[in-house]
């Protein structure tokens, strides 16, 4: 499951920025860690994060599903095709450094995806927009965030309709690569031209609703923040910075 899941866990109750900062720290921290053991700890942290949000089961399931293809490819790319020395593993000889590398890269991706899914499941989009508005984030950015997500399904439906309609006018989707490239015109043009033709109408509608370019809206229901959370976010930033400092110091040494 990808998307917000209603709940009352600490992550749900925390200020949206705090939860996002935690998953951001996982993302940036992941690239600072380079050894299998460190990455193991990272994955454990991501698991704890998801458990705190009480979305471990669904998030872990999705995260594993999403990173499975990457694990398989990593295994082939590094484990089977990696450098010497090799270790016999049943019928195949696996590259020892390759496997270590696959574990690091795969663990990283899994931890990042798990952290991200957890944030997605526990940060309510509404509270996030409220928090951003209360922070004085200009209308434009919150508009883009919220309204793009609402136009996407409509555009998708349009694309489906166009695909169906042109086929019913005799357009074949298969055939030679040249024929398929030529079919891009009748399929992509109506999507783009139709959307462009609606721009002015949409601008008028938004204007009528008083959404002037840089106007600021007052947040109606800003989520509560606290000193402790504020401090936590700064601490996370410091932690990530320290991790990178350590990484570069070690690389030099």
């Amino acid at each position, binding site marked *: 499951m990808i998307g917000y899941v209603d709940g009352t866990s600490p992550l749900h109750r925390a200020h949206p920025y705090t939860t996002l900062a935690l998953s951001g720290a996982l993302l940036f921290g992941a690239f600072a860690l380079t050894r299998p053991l460190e990455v193991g700890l990272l994955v454990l942290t991501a698991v704890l994060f998801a458990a705190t949000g009480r979305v471990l089961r669904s998030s872990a399931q999705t995260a594993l599903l999403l990173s499975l293809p990457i694990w398989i490819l990593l295994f082939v790319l590094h484990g089977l095709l990696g450098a010497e020395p090799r270790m016999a593993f049943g019928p195949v000889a696996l590259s020892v450094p390759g496997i270590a590398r696959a574990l690091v890269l795969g663990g990283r991706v899994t931890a990042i995806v798990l952290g991200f899914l957890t944030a997605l499941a526990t940060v309510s989009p509404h509270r996030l927009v409220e928090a951003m508005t209360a922070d004085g984030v200009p209308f434009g950015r919150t508009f883009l965030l919220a309204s793009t997500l609402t136009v996407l399904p409509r555009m998708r439906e349009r694309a489906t309709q*166009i695909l169906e309609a*042109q086929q019913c006018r005799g357009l074949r*989707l298969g055939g030679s690569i040249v024929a398929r490239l030529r079919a891009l015109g009748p399929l992509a043009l109506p999507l783009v*031209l139709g959307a462009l033709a609606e721009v002015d109408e949409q601008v008028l509608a938004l204007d009528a609703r008083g959404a002037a370019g840089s106007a600021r809206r007052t947040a109606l229901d800003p989520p509560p923040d606290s000193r402790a959370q504020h401090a936590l976010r700064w601490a996370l930033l410091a932690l990530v910075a320290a991790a990178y400092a350590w990484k570069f110091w070690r690389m030099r040494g």
Partner: protein
Amino acid sequence: MNGCDVRLEGVRYAYGAREALRGVSLRIGAGEQVALVGPNGAGKTTLTRLLVALRRPGAGRVTVGDWEVAHKRPDEMAQRVGYVFQHADHQLFARSIRDDVVFGPRRLGRSEALVPGVLEEMGLAAAAGLHPYDVPAPLRKLVALAGVLAMEPCVLVLDEPTAGLDRVQRDRVVSALQRRAEAGVTVLAVSHDLGFVAEVAARVVVMGDGRIVADRPARELLYDREALAALGLRPPPTVEISGALGLRGSPVRTTEVVAVMGGIRWKQMPE
């Protein structure tokens, strides 16, 4: 032109777990004009999509003439069935209205000789050189209809063809369909607009919750107030007028009502 008959036998279709068609059997004879009505979500659009191979039935059989639809792709079905989408104005892409109308016949390898006549029929002859996105959306819908008519299909399937059109535009659609009916084209039109149904259909199939709940001659159903009320519909204006005046012979089309009324005046004048 030879008409093609359309048959559905025990057809079922589900979108995931949502059953949209729960066993539909329907036969539309070659050259017959049928309207498909019913509440939102009844499965009307789903049924029409099966006819052009855009969806494959989960069970049952669909045939158009001697073609087994299950063995065809939508672009192959286009040789026989012309499909006018509800949002047909979304499909235009050429740089002029004429070029867009020509697209279908060209794709099917057919003659483009019909194009000027079809443009004329839709009242687009003067606008043929304009860019389709330089004309209003309802006109774009007529352009799309013209594009399908120019393909010379032997079965015409239309989903809400009159939605969003004004009186004049709607009348153009009506006369175009009446002309096709005279030429023996099979017509299946999905519509909520009973005035339109009265003009173009001889038979009305009513769907409800994925099933066919009624299948009656238009002349009969459009006069059955109770049956219509059960569908949340009211008789079309022609039927209201004819009912109020007590006209004989259950006229449903405007031309029929005019003819009957003309007859009455002629008889009653001497008194």
